[in-house]
C-alpha cells in the first residue's frame, strides 16, 4: 500500500478490456445496451465501434483505488465520460490508471485519477474519496 499523504503519486495500473469482459459486465450490471456488444448498432448510433461501458472503466478506476489504498472504504467516486474506450473484436483495449493524492484531511483522502486509453484521456476529472486512519 502506498502512503496516503498529499502529493503522493500512485503507481499506474494497466488493465486490458476485452469484448468478453463487456459481455460479463453486461450480465453482472444489467446494462445490456447493445452499443457495448454489437458493432453494427454501435456504428448505427454514430460510435466508432463497440465501446466499453463507461461504468466498466469507472469500475477499473475503483479497482485501482482499492489496490492503492489497501481496500479503504470509498465515500465518493465519480467522473465524466469524455471519450469512449473502443474495444476491438480481437485483442482488447488497454486502460491505464494513474493517481495522485490531492489532500488528506478529516479522515479522508482525495485521490485525483488520470485514466487514459491509447494515450487519450477517457474520463473527465475522475476522483475518489476514501476513508483513512
Amino acid at each position: 500500500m502506498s502512503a496516503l499523504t498529499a502529493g503522493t503519486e500512485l503507481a499506474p495500473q494497466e488493465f486490458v478490456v476485452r469484448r468478453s469482459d463487456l459481455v460479463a459486465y453486461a450480465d453482472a450490471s444489467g446494462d445490456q445496451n447493445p452499443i457495448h456488444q454489437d458493432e453494427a448498432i454501435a456504428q448505427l448510433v454514430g460510435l466508432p465501434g463497440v465501446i466499453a461501458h463507461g461504468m466498466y472503466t469507472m469500475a477499473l478506476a475503483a479497482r485501482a483505488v482499492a489496490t492503492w489504498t489497501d481496500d479503504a472504504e470509498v465515500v465518493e467516486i465519480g467522473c465524466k465520460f469524455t471519450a469512449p474506450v473502443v474495444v476491438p473484436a480481437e485483442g482488447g483495449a488497454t486502460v491505464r490508471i494513474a493517481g495522485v493524492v490531492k489532500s488528506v484531511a478529516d479522515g479522508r483522502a482525495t485521490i485525483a485519477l488520470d485514466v487514459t486509453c491509447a494515450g487519450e484521456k477517457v474520463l473527465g476529472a475522475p476522483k475518489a474519496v476514501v476513508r483513512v486512519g
Partner: protein
Amino acid sequence: MPIDSSLIGREFPPTPPLVVTAAEVTSFASATGSETRRVPATFPIVVTFRALLGFLEAEQVELARIVHGEQRFTYERPIVIGDELSATLSVTGLRQIEGTDILRTTSTITDAAGELVCTAGATLVHRADA
C-alpha cells in the same frame, strides 16, 4: 424525438428492492477483475441502472441511443451483503444541443429501513439522430 422538458423535477417510482447477494457481488467484481474484500464501489450502478431502465421505458426512449455522460456516487455508508436496495430516480435537469438531449438525474438509493445509503448522480446523453 426530443425528450419532453416537462420532465424536469419529476420523480419516478422506486425500483423493486434488489437483494445484494454474495453471488451477485462476486459476478460484478469478477467482470472487472476486482479482488476487493468489499462490495465494489461502483456496485450501486446495478440498482441505479434498473431505475434508469424504468425511466427510459416510461418515456419510450431507446437504450441504444443513450450514452453515459457522467456518474457520481456519494455514500452514506458502505453497501454490505444482505442489503435490500431500492433506487428512486428524479430528473434534475435537461438541455438540448443540436438534437442531443443532455439529461441530469439523481437517484437516491435506500435500504430496507428506508435509510439513505448512497446518492447516484448521472448525466445521460440521448443521441436522437445519428
